[in-house]
């Protein structure tokens, strides 16, 4: 039976503040999954803690709303054992660039075939307005009453340096473009990061009005396989380019794990797995 968009929505009503960019992101995710016709039961959505961590509640998928900063390594485990499932990871700037930032390079090294939606509103919203790794220098927040004195983390160049095999930027205020980028990320074989800028209405660092004139799509002829060019475009601050900065093909974690099994069983009875008794004999 053909699915409808409704089939991707859970029974739980979103509880974000009115005007929150996360509504647009949720719409885009639902649309992307629907348009790709992925059965909801074949989707695992893992989220971290924070406003965006709630996204997993509202999707009619196998959803795991875990601990702060661990959406990516939980997704690695899920995808490792069930290659046939579509695995999404979702988290915010605090979740993904602060507490969980250390996991990204290692997921990238594995090139695990997950799509990581990193939602950046440049503030800790759920804990009510503290500075995050992307809050701009000088910005006053509850934990930076005299202005942020740390430099801002440049996420896209960092993902490129980590060699994430699909790196894109989008915004929650352009849902159609975001949907297409999420679809491209899910379709990409390997680790994809869709870095989404979004406004927080309650603790505004990024404001909608400001965002309307911030972005510009990458030029049509942007060479996606050229990392240095991608790096150059990622460092342009005005405008902020949206779209796919970088995309290359390489073996995924599951390709690598399958290859391990092939190598380990190559000399055994037509490549069949060893049985327990054979393992015991190796120790006697």
């Amino acid at each position, binding site marked *: 039976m053909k699915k409808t968009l409704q089939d991707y929505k859970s029974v739980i009503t979103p509880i974000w503040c009115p005007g929150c960019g996360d509504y647009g992101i949720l719409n885009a995710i639902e649309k992307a999954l629907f348009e790709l016709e992925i*059965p909801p039961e074949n989707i695992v959505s893992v989220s971290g803690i924070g406003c965006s961590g709630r996204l997993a509640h509202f999707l009619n998928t196998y959803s795991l709303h875990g601990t702060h900063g661990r959406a990516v390594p939980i997704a690695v485990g899920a995808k*490792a054992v069930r290659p046939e499932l579509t695995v999404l990871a979702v988290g915010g700037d605090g979740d993904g660039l602060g507490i969980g930032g250390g996991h990204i390079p290692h997921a990238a090294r594995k090139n695990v075939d997950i799509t990581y939606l990193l939602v950046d509103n440049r503030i800790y919203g759920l804990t009510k307005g503290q500075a995050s790794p992307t809050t701009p220098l000088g910005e006053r927040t509850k934990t930076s009453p005299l202005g942020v004195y740390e430099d801002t983390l440049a996420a896209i160049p960092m993902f490129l340096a980590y060699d994430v095999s699909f790196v894109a930027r989008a915004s929650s205020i352009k849902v159609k473009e975001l949907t297409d980028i999420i679809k491209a990320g899910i379709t990409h074989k390997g680790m994809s990061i869709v870095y989404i800028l979004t406004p927080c209405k309650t603790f505004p660092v990024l404001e909608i009005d400001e965002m309307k004139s911030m972005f510009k799509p990458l030029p049509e002829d942007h060479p996606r396989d050229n990392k240095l060019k991608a790096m150059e475009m990622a460092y342009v601050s005005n405008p902020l380019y949206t779209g796919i900065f970088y995309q290359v093909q390489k073996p995924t974690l599951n390709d690598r794990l399958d290859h391990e099994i092939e190598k380990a069983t190559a000399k055994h009875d037509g490549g069949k797995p*060893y049985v327990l008794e054979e393992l015991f004999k190796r120790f006697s």
Partner: protein
Amino acid sequence: MSTGGFRSKVDFVVRIGGEAGEGVVSAGELFAQAAARTEYHVFSYPTYPAEIKGGFSMIQIRIRDWTVYSMGSRVDYLIVFNQQAYDRTIQDLREGGTLIYDPEEVKVPAEIAAKKVPIPLDAIAVRVSGSKLGKNVVALGVLGYVFDMGSAVLDKLIRDRYGLKGSAVVDKNLQALAAGYEAAKTAGIESGVHLGTRSEEKVRYMMLSGNEAVALGAIAAGCRFVAGYPITPATPIFETLAKLMPMVGGRAVQMEDEIASASAIVGASFCGEKVISPTSGPGLQLMGEQLNLASMLELPVVVVNVQRGGPSTGLPTKTEQSDLKFAIYGSAGEAPRAILAPTGVEDSFYQTIRAFNIAERFQMPVILLTDQSIGYRKATVRIPAIDKIKFIDQSVLSEKIVIPDPEHVEIASRIEATEEDLREYKRYKITSDGVSPTVRPGTPGGQHLATGLEHTEEGQADYSPINHVRMTQKRFKKLEMLSAALEKNPPEYHGSPEAKIGIIGWGSTEGAIREARYLAEEKGIKLRHLHPRLLSPLPENRIRHFLVGLKQVIMVEENYTGQFAHFIKGKFGIKPVEIHKYEGVPITPEEILRGIEKVARVVDEENLTRL
């Protein structure tokens, strides 16, 4: 008095000591491997410094014609490569024991009451192979002569061990071996023990370390996913699984730290796999947040903590039983989990299977608490009978699943939702035993939310007082059911029903306590020995049963604070005599015996009454 085959015709201890990097441990392991291929039972235990080279290192091997329960108390044959090894181990040599030493490295005082055998190991190694590096194989040759192993057995060992390194390496080692053999012959040392034959019965034995036994147990239990991060002394479990997993079609993933490792097993368990992550104390601390999440999401995960000396980096290569309280309680909020402690190498295999059974059936994390002394010891282990491994149907009640032993192994999986359940699926449905049916992603109609927030039966976040009460009770109901299931099992204690003295231990001290009990019984002291494997939840009625009629209880632990004693005192209101050892090395039967004798004198003289 019968001691169940305790007194043996053949029972001796060999120790080799030297500087780390000199091949001390590998010489000992080769000797132990050779002995394991004979009709005897073998137990070997190495200690390493934390450094790769330098520092004192030794290996102790005990060989018996009956099951070996501990590394033994006194050394019969001591081989020392240098002065430091001599100084640190000579006090353990039995009076009249044999001391084999390199006279160019070690000064031995004339008054030592030992059979002194100087053999210039360095000089021989340099002569035959041009380098001191071969002295461990020279030492192996010496042992080969002393125990009459025959060149066929020894040569095969060298070929097995060094064959991959090419014929030049094999030849050099064979020459070193022969030179050691000749030197021992010239020196005229003989033990009268012949370790040359292979008995047919022994074919069904493996020579395993405790860490390898855990790895094999996991595979036997049906685990096909391991995520890990290297940490001494648990690394060999991960290394073994990294090798074996792909061979059986499973997956091994090295993660960036223990937080990520625990996260990965949570993700894989959510997807329906049986999962494991091995670690040691400092790693368990990092895994805390995910174990906590697994309790809340009711996901089965097995974590092995091969304990080492702490706190902090502590004594990475030494043993201690000091993570018990952290294992039970190291969580935010109240998070049910079960703690199992295997007693030795063979038990590590069966308790690992049991850890999976409990985790899967009760949908919670299980921490398997071993320690460095189990993980690194090697022992001969009977090959489990594959045809006796039974996969348990979902219809079998969890409390009916047997505790695995060499004769009965049952393997359980998690209870899965039926079509009926899926019609209006409630992942956290409240049931009579607290266990709710699970569903594997990919199953239509099973989509649900698993959140670390307090949630309803359906999985939706809900912080209402009544909901938190219901769901807390539901999660803890599973622990109560586990505890109740355990009460139905036969008692786990050994010894005399008339005993007035009881002795309680946990984990790796089982063998030493057992031998101490045999030694005490020979002196006419009756004892009862309780050694629970499941440490949390505790089967309280069965422990009460054990305590009935006892006038004094001794508790043995390898820690400073008496972590298990704290529970026993609190739950049962007794005041045990506590024997603590926290030197980083395992307690010996003799040390325990000294404690038993003291207590026995008090019990006799004062006729103390307690309980």
